[in-house]
């Protein structure tokens, strides 16, 4: 047998071992970064859902606040007024979410509908990679006012037409 053949075999084994270490290490790193990525995406979607819920309730609040309780009349709010309420809610809660183009589809008292784009974003893995989740959201509400002259009272009921839930009910 040639001199050095054992050295060659040992060297080859050493190279294979080092290669195996590099492959397993990089596979583990990739695995954990994939888990991190999936977790962040899920987090964005959760925040988007929560932001949508908050804005849904904020709209009900704005509609209730648009009722003149002394005259018991409803004046449909302008998109800019809804925008201001939405901005305040988002500014005090999920700051990495935002909205665009609030548009009123129907401003009738019986059926108040709006739609807008809701966007949530988050930095992933490193500071330069930002993932966004964007979708158009539509809300539909019904405003009901019941005026009773004696004794004088005004009852306001805001119902969410998509879920059927009564969100605001107040009598003044």
């Amino acid at each position: 047998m040639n001199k050095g053949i054992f050295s060659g075999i040992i060297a080859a084994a050493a190279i294979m071992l080092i290669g195996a270490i590099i492959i397993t290490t990089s596979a583990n790193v990739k695995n954990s970064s994939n888990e991190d990525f999936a977790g962040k995406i899920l987090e964005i979607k959760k925040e988007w859902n929560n932001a949508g819920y908050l804005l849904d309730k904020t709209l009900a609040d704005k509609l209730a606040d648009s009722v003149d309780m002394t005259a018991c009349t409803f004046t449909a709010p302008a998109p800019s007024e809804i925008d201001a309420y939405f901005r305040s809610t988002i500014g005090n809660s999920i700051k990495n979410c935002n909205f665009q183009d609030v548009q009123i589809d129907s401003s009738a008292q019986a059926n108040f509908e709006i739609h807008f784009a809701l966007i949530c974003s988050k930095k992933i893995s490193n500071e330069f990679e930002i993932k966004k989740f964007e979708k158009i959201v539509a809300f539909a509400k019904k405003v009901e006012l019941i005026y009773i002259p004696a004794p004088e009272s005004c009852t306001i009921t805001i119902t969410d037409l998509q879920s059927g839930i009564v969100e605001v009910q107040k009598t003044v």
Partner: protein
Amino acid sequence: MKKGFIFSIDAAIGIAVIFIAMSSMTFFYLQDSSSPKIFHAMDQNASDSATMGFYLGKSPADMGLDNSIASGAKQGFCGRIFDYNPDNGPLGTQSAPEDRNYCDGT
């Protein structure tokens, strides 16, 4: 120089390299990896409980969690979710979002 000297040194270096490589691999696989897994599980549990608790109307205590991390805890994670009640407060004034924390810690 003795015959076979290079071969012997060569083999010794090879064996040393293999020994170091195997020791590294053994150390890598036997090291304690349970802590990061526990952190990840706690984080996941807090986040999932926050979502589930919020939509089911359950408090952190109902979900087996706290609303803050205990002062003596070594580590803890909180799932944060916001609620908004339009029926709160007087008419003509905007209500404010309320945050709810579902915290898991040891």
